[in-house]
């Protein structure tokens, strides 16, 4: 018996140590990466190095303009800094159309490696003149640019947005996470930003940069190895441009209430269905009769 108790105790301890081992090994697992790779996969969609502003500022020689500690804090959570009232963070946020820079789950070392990469790629001559962003051009495979997009291109963009037409590389439709206020279009997803006026906020270059190489972690995961083709980007831009232009003529619908009411009505039907299907069920416990009989016969 004593042997058995000791045996059980030993087993319990081994099990606890095993669980602790798993916790510590998994917590201490951090992805390792270098500056170039991180910049290309995370920052490039919104920032350039010496080629002018895009969605966010040009990062050329940023190491000379800002303190390393400030950059690390801003990259980790720009919103936290803006909310805390950091004047430079607030100024940058307002200057770039209040577009939220997503929090990046990067370590200090990883951010420093990105800063080093930017330093390496930045032009050596520092000028006070801001580099002008080159004019944006995106043509579809037929050779039309965005200004030449007509009704058909807009319609194709609509279909790509809702998923009626699937992306060539199997990326999920935009409607899964994004909403665009448009009559005759069902409500879009609420997980991410409403894109009704995305074209005004981000302009064509910004949207194209984001959908070419998503900087937002959730979008990046959804489109991993599922890049949009040039044509798909073109049609989506045509749709978003038109949706933005038409937005003031639309009639927003409250889908929240409809969703709740549909759920409650459906529930009532479902409960009624259960009641009907099992109408002839034994409604009391199987021993109810025996229980009653025992009480009466006492």
């Amino acid at each position, binding site marked *: 018996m004593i042997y058995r108790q000791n045996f059980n105790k030993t087993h319990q301890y081994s099990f606890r140590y095993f669980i602790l081992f798993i916790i510590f090994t998994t917590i201490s697992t951090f992805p390792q990466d270098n500056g170039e790779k991180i910049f290309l996969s995370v920052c490039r969609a919104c920032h350039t190095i010496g080629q002018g502003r895009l969605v966010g500022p040009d990062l050329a020689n940023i190491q000379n303009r800002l303190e390393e500690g400030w950059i690390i804090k801003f990259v980790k959570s720009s919103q936290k800094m803006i909310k805390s009232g950091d004047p430079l963070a607030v100024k940058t946020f307002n200057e770039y159309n209040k577009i939220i820079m997503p929090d990046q789950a990067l370590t200090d070392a990883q951010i420093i490696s990105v800063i080093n990469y930017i330093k390496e790629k930045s032009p050596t001559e520092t000028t006070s003149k801001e580099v002008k962003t080159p004019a944006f051009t995106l043509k579809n495979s037929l050779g039309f640019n965005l200004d030449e997009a007509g009704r058909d291109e807009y319609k194709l963009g609509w279909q790509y947005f809702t998923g*009626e037409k699937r992306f060539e590389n199997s990326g999920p439709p935009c409607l899964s996470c994004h909403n665009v206020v448009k009559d005759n279009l069902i409500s879009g997803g609420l997980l991410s930003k409403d894109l009704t006026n995305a074209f005004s906020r981000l302009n064509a270059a910004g949207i194209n940069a984001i959908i070419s190489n998503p900087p937002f972690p959730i979008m990046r995961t*959804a489109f991993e190895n599922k890049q949009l083709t040039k044509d798909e980007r073109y049609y989506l831009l045509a749709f978003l441009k038109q949706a933005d232009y038409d937005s003031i003529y639309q009639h927003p619908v409250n889908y929240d209430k409809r969703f709740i009411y549909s759920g409650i009505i459906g529930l009532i039907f479902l409960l009624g269905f259960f009641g009907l299907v099992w109408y002839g069920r034994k409604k009391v416990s199987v021993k109810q009769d025996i229980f009653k009989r025992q009480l009466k016969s006492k």
Partner: protein
Amino acid sequence: METLYNFLFIALPYVALTVFLIGTIYRYKGTKFKFSSLSSQFLEGRKLFWGSVPFHYGIIFLFFGHLIAFLIPGTVIAWNSEPLRLVILEVTGFVFGLSALVGMVSLFFRRTTDARIKVVTSKMDLIIELLIIAQIILGLWIAYGFRWGSSWFASVLSPYLWSIFYLNPNIEAVSNMPLVIQLHISLAFFIVLLIPFTRLVHLLVPPLHYLWRPYQRVIWYWDRKKVRNPKSPWSVTKSQNN
């Protein structure tokens, strides 16, 4: 924060799945006869029906909905590519979610208010029921506040779950999800962890053979009217079974 995310979305899933696997096998080998839902239908049946049936049908629909989006996300996205089908799927899921909530809340009240059920209720029964209620409320909140969950689950959470099973966890997306979704994911793994210690183990031994088992005829061989008459005392005809 990073450590917390590593704990919730990497360590917790592995701990939960390990404990679930080892715990259920250990318990099955040790106390096989307690590897069930420990039914209380003999003690109370009326309230049980309006708790158990809505809960079980609701949770089975939701479980398989999540499972399909995890296993074959492309199919779910293809299904949702038609807006009407997307709305039908989401509303149906929401209805079954409400059904599961109504069922579980009534089961919880039954367990805490019925004198006979209270006798056979352990602390763990109440804990797991409260956790399931919280989990369903979080799920409904997500369905309502962050639609369309079926689509983004397939495209964002399915890769995360697969990364867990490939032993190469990628928590980039889940770390940036809204808090309510993070809570729903963490609580799901916590419930998986608790399965071996609760009567939830019964989900591993569903009596599926009941679906095609032939009916069993019960033949009484004494005077049933006399036995059922409350005026006749026990000593005349003693019950042969029950």
